[in-house]
């Protein structure tokens, strides 16, 4: 239990997070704080969160993900959530956790393409 922070990688204009551990509530909250500061620090245009290694999303983790998406979107850096396992998706819906405000993609590749498209659309709008 020495790892108490989830690493955030910068890739071009985007931030990349891959959650590889079973997070305690504290680690989830730390990720929320770290991500919002990093978005501001680097002027990120988007965030990609890979949860393909997560075997469970309960209401607290679900809410933290929804919060991250809302905060990043308020800072003009949309979040895309990728890689949710089918069993996790089934359980999240039955539990009643709403991720309706969160953009999703099947895998990292598609998630990155979605972020690039969102950034391109915004540039077009700015130039118009």
């Amino acid at each position, binding site marked *: *239990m020495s790892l108490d922070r989830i690493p955030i990688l910068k890739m071009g204009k985007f931030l990349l997070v891959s959650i590889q551990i*079973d*997070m*305690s*509530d*504290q680690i989830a909250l730390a990720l929320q704080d770290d991500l919002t500061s990093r978005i501001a620090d680097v002027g990120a245009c988007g965030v990609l969160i890979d949860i393909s290694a997560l*075997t*469970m*999303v*309960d*209401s*607290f983790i*679900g*809410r933290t993900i929804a919060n991250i998406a809302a905060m990043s979107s308020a800072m003009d850096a949309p979040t895309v959530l990728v890689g949710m*396992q*089918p*069993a*996790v998706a*089934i*359980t999240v819906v*039955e*539990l*009643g*956790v709403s991720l309706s405000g969160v953009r999703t993609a099947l895998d990292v590749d598609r998630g990155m393409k979605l972020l690039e498209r969102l950034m391109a659309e915004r540039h077009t709008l700015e130039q118009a």
Partner: protein
Amino acid sequence: MSIVKRDTVAIRTESDVVRARQTVRVWAQDIGFTLVDTTKLVTAASELARNTYDHGGGGDMHLEVHDEGDRRGLRLVFVDQGPGIVDIDLAMRDGYTTGKGMGMGLGGSRRLVNEFEIESQPKVGTRVVITRWRS
């Protein structure tokens, strides 16, 4: 009906909540739950273990493997000596929260299991029993 195996996990710290759900995963896999059934039980356990820690001031999770006729299931009992729940019907309602969560913990975890029982007495504590049978 007989109990084939039992054990207890203490829930005293936040990392015990993680340990509790990891233990449930191992036990569910051992008795042959499908991945979806395992995920549902682990998620319900995570909600209830968090309640035990956050609202109950800590407590225990008892795990029991039950055989009943030709079916086998995993029963989890969460016990705390915390302040208790004054209005259980209200606490079970989706969206109702006194804490930092979404208010989906109790109502949501009931939907993820086959059997759900809750007993609570103000100033005495709370006991929640959930069971999921192997499908």
